């Protein structure tokens, strides 16, 4: 059959491409062999759970009985009836909006400052800044620092200076919990992103700076904007993704410091809410709906950041 029309031509090209990629796949089968062990495990423990989460979110499921399809009921309850969830969303949002960008900027700024130090000082400084996030349980020491009685470190300093006359229940009073949490999370925010910034700064071609000097760059801010940022774009994106990840997945710190559940749910985040429904009340369907909500928000955030960062330095 003659295919003279444009559509026919297109189809033929497409067909050829398909058969080409199929034959290529056949030729490259050893690649799939290499990928297979990882791909199978990854599928079982990351992709499959995500898909089943979406399925369970439309059902009522308590592990013992078979899941029962309930349509959008979980989502409707979540948004319209569950006030604790709204508190959790609000808290997570506050934590994410403050610690995400601030933690990101701090990591970037300190990586930038550290970069100009002599080599051995830089090595020590990286350890000092990164240690809080690599020593995952170290934040529990904050429960001593912020202890509610006069033996707590902060309380006794404030009493000593005469700023307060009775110890403050930092971790139990809803008025202070969020502030304390944000401080602790910021303390831990120099994580993987920070490391990749430090490494990224060292990878920049030094002669670019000299050339920039000759071309009329006169201070460190111009240098940062015109030379450093554009050459670090990929690392910036990675750091941003790591920082949203940590900001949205906050759950260990509030559970360890503010108690579980916390006073008036003041330290409830989306992930602790999910944990509560999933592992304490065994309402898997409802918990899955929360998980799906979180997936959506994070994927949207990633999109927004990718778009935003592509404009840096242009």
């Amino acid at each position, binding site marked *: 059959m003659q295919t003279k029309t444009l559509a026919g031509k297109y189809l033929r090209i497409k067909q050829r491409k398909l058969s080409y990629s199929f034959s290529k*796949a056949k030729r490259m089968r*050893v690649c799939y062999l*290499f*990928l297979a*062990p*990882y*791909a199978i*495990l990854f599928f*079982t*423990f*990351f*992709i499959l*759970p*995500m898909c*089943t*989460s979406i399925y369970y979110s439309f059902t009522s499921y308590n*592990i013992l009985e078979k899941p029962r399809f309930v349509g959008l009921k979980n989502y409707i309850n979540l948004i319209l009836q569950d006030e604790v969830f709204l508190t959790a969303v609000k808290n997570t949002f506050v934590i994410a909006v403050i610690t995400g960008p601030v933690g990101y900027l701090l990591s970037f700024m300190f990586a930038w400052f550290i970069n*100009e130090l*002599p080599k051995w000082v830089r090595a020590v400084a990286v*350890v*000092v*800044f*990164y240690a809080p996030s690599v*020593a*995952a*349980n*170290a934040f*529990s*020491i904050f429960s001593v620092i912020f202890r509610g009685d006069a*033996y*707590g470190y902060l309380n006794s*300093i404030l009493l*000593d200076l005469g700023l307060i006359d009775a110890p403050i229940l930092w971790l139990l009073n809803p008025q202070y919990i969020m502030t304390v949490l944000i401080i602790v999370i910021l*303390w831990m925010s120099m994580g*993987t992103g920070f490391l990749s910034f*430090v*490494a990224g700064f*060292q*990878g920049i071609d*030094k002669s670019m*700076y*000299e*050339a920039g*000097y000759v071309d009329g*760059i006169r201070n*460190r801010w111009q240098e940062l904007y015109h030379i450093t940022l554009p050459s*670090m774009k*990929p*690392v910036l*994106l990675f750091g941003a*993704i790591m920082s949203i*990840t940590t900001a*949205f*997945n906050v*759950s260990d710190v509030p559970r360890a410091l503010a108690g579980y559940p916390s006073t008036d749910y003041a330290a409830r985040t989306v992930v602790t809410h999910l944990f509560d429904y999933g592992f304490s009340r065994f309402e*898997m369907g409802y*918990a*899955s709906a929360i998980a799906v909500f979180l997936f959506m928000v994070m994927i949207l955030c990633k999109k927004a950041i*990718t778009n935003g960062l*592509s404009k840096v330095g242009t």
Partner: protein
Amino acid sequence: MNGSILLESAGTLIIPASPKERGKLCMGETEAVFINRRGTELLQLNYTDIDRLKNVRNGGISSTITVTLKDGSAFDLQLDRGLAAYEFLFKHWPSRPREPKSRADEYRRLAELRGERIQKPRRANEKQYRNCRIAALVIALLLLIFDSELIQNLFGFTLTSGFMVAINILIIALILVLLAFSFKRRKPNRSIGGDMGIYIMLILVACLMAFPLVFAISSSLKPLDELFRFPPTLFPRHATFDNFSDLLVTMGQSWVPFSRYLLNTVIITFVGTAGHLLIASMAAFVLAKYDFPGGKTFFAVVTTCLMFSGYVTGIPNYVIMSKLGMIDTYWALVLPAFAAPIGLFMMKQFMESLPTALIEAAHIDGAGEFRIFWSIVMPNVKPAWLTIIIFSVQGLWNNSAATVIYSEAKKTLVYALQQIQAGGIARTGQAAAVTVVVMSVPIVIFILSESQILETMASSGIKD
């Protein structure tokens, strides 16, 4: 070849218009020889013949060295210890340029030819360094004379002198800054005031960052009466290891012998990390070096999964594990760790910088894919191994696994330690000791492997 071989490096020799040859480059005092697999000397390179040397780093320690001879011929060497080889060649090259030319130097030369006036980068003179050094010394001496309390404070100050301590810290910061200034060669585009501000801020923030960790360590060294002293002290007056020895005693009384918890953690951490390293590297190798249908999509999915923490997928994961009969076995911890996305991501980004010619040359020599992976790719990505290892150990070591493991005999060390920690007021000292024990392992591993980790992280960027 005359003389002894001082440095050897395996790699590929590329001469234009002739086939690539795999072999090794043996470098001596005055000349280098390239010997191929069959032992034939292909190239004799006398260092006096070199006209130009160029080094392009491929990532890791491998790099491509371009050698141009005085007769105009040129060839490339792709070496697996390329950085060391390049530095060696450069050092022994008799007519090496005194200072490598940069783009800016070239620009300046051209501008001078055109007769433009060029402002040279500002550099501080030697006198300024000396003045800084003298100033730092004078301040330090004054401090010692007038503030004898300082020494005492450093070893156990109380809060009543908190204000004094703050002043002391500031003064020490100032001394450090001045000292730093006296040794540093000034860079262009940096104002002294700005540098000074940044150093002071860095020192203060570093103190704030380190404070909780220092506090944790000092609490673990305090005897019980000092833990409940009012006002609390920062450093113990009578440091003791009692808390750690008490911890050992408590461990000895537990129902399941403590060595069992330790063994569990060691098994889980070791098997999980080793398996993850092997499986993720295999996948990363084909994703980075071969273009096959589906590869890019797969990697994009992995990158998206970087964002989800274990809790979010925890519920369906539990269901899947119970269907597979893995609940209450080590597999429930080890298998998901094998597939952690961060390891694959780091490894793939790092492997991309490996020279493709290295792999092609091995193909021509008839090596199979697994052979290439095992004996060429893996030895070249050692910095990435360490990075994967620290991420994986960090995750597995801190995993208390309370949701997937029920039998007491299979619980992890961190879980057992947390039980001790939860023992109330009487165990405060031991709880501090637990915190120190648990946090020290990842920190020590990180300190030991820092430089390699930073090398890997340099290629961690995501291109959009």
